[in-house]
């Protein structure tokens, strides 16, 4: 498999750029209904390997559509979406699972399996992609420790608090070591204190080299974290700011992170550059 992946990287248009950008949108427009305005309108942006980015905006601004396009749940109406250098439109349907193995996803409603224990919920993500029992036995407790759930392996989801359930969901999302973690309002159902705990977990995962993209409404969290903020309104990026707050007094378009040209970056940002990429789980094991 590593050989195969190398080939894909080799055929990508501009390898040096590809390796740096984990997610890259090139003039992406997504139209669900031709009579209404597009859900995403000519969006171009790049999220680097190891970056932590917030996606903010009102409901219907296009945050979820953005995440769906990264997962290839939907096709872009026009423009191109690159994930780890691959144009997702060019990934054949039988290879889509491989793309998704490189991306962890967390939702507002946790989406745990109610009749399975914490351990089994996390192990499920490894079972379905055919990991061996011994690998699962070794990895799951380790990941549960990372999210702060050691000792609760045998609990059922309904025996846990909301924050703990979300930690299980995060553990499940990262147990296969994806290069990207997408979080769709992960703190939407949680109180502020619990939310901060969850943010701590996400931050830790980001420190370990995983690119994190989090769609949120939670201004406290965004203001606290001081990470990159991409603000969408009606499908258009109206602000893209590093170390930003939830709201900016002066919305600035294109100040920092428009598409860069191949020559390189237009600003520097602190990065924990991990050597991770989608689908890298097997090699790291």
């Amino acid at each position, binding site marked *: 498999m590593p050989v195969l992946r190398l080939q894909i990287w080799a055929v990508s248009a501009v390898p040096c750029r590809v390796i740096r950008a984990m997610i890259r949108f090139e003039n992406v427009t997504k139209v669900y209904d031709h009579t209404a305005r597009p859900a995403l309108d000519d969006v171009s942006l790049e999220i680097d390997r190891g970056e932590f980015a917030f996606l903010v905006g009102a409901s219907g601004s296009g945050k979820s559509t953005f995440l769906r396009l990264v997962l290839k749940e939907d096709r872009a109406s026009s423009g191109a979406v690159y994930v780890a250098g691959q144009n997702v439109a060019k990934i054949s349907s*039988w290879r889509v*699972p491989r793309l998704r*193995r490189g991306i962890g996803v967390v939702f507002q409603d946790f*989406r745990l399996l109610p009749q399975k224990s914490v351990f089994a919920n996390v192990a499920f993500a490894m*079972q379905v*992609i*055919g990991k*061996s*029992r011994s690998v699962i036995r070794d990895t799951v407790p380790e990941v549960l420790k990372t999210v702060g759930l050691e000792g609760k392996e045998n609990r059922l989801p309904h025996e846990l608090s909301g924050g703990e359930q979300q930690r299980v969901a995060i553990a499940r999302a990262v147990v*296969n070591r994806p290069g990207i973690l997408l979080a769709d309002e992960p703190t939407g159902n949680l109180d502020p204190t619990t939310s901060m705990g969850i943010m701590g977990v996400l931050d830790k995962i980001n420190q370990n080299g995983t690119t994190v993209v989090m769609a949120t409404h939670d201004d406290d969290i965004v203001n606290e974290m001081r990470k990159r903020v991409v603000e969408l309104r009606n499908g258009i990026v109206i602000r893209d700011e590093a170390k930003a707050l939830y709201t900016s007094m002066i919305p600035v378009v294109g100040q920092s992170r428009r598409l860069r040209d191949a020559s390189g970056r237009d600003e520097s940002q602190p990065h924990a550059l991990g050597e991770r990429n989608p689908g890298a789980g097997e090699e790291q094991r």
Partner: protein
Amino acid sequence: MRLAFVLGEIGSGLRRNVSMVVSVILVTFVSLTFVGAAGMLQLQINQMKGYWYDKVQVAIFLCSDGSTAAGCATGPVTPEQQDNLQTLLESPAVAQYVNDFQYESNEEAYKHFKDQFSNSPIVDSVTPDQLPSSFRINMKDPEKYQIISETFSSQPGVETVIDQRQLLERLFSAMNAASLVAVSIAGVMIVCAILLIATTIRLSAFSRRRETGIMRLVGASKIVIQLPFILEGVIAAVIGAALASGTLWAVAHFFLGEYLSKQYPDTAFISPGQTLILAPALLILGGSLAGISSLLTLRRYLKV
């Protein structure tokens, strides 16, 4: 690991909607029993045709030890009489109606008899000398049977002339009609089975949409997601097919073997073992019907 996982998923799926699975089993069982019954009737027809049916139309039986017919007053047929009959068959007057004829000796008759009645107790009580030797005639035009009959009935050494077709044809056409009815009922039942399997799989996919949603997200392959559902339908249908095969065997064993063959000892019936030829066909038919209908349902209702 993946195999164990798939098997576990199948188990939980089957447990979760037991009632639907049972109905799939029963519907496939009934429909395949009808398919099998049609098959059995055809086997039975073949069995009754025996060695000669498809080869000749008319049989001239020669006198044997126990013959009581008028032409047999002089006892069993002599070589001389037999030669005369053969000459007559070859004479231009008769030969113009005859395509071909064959002589069947007592020993050959015994051999063919044993083959045909292998499932019947009668075979043990018959010896070669009880069976008449015969000329078997393949007619150019089977309708001209009367000419042969008139020519040979009164010849010395001839016990009787029989038009085999006339004896069996009516029975066979009844049996063919019966198998046609069975096939039509089976057709309707199979449509039922397909629709029921599709509904069951749909329910199953719906009740497990959480799991399959998560499986998609973490990158499970299409096969791992869909296989448990497909196998669920296939397993139910194969159980139904196995029950149908068992039923056919039981009918052959208890009804034909124990009852009818005692009522009609001079009729050749199929053995229970012969019905098992139908079993693999029923299993494959049931399994593939379920597999195809599950697959089509999943393509619509389970996004991967």
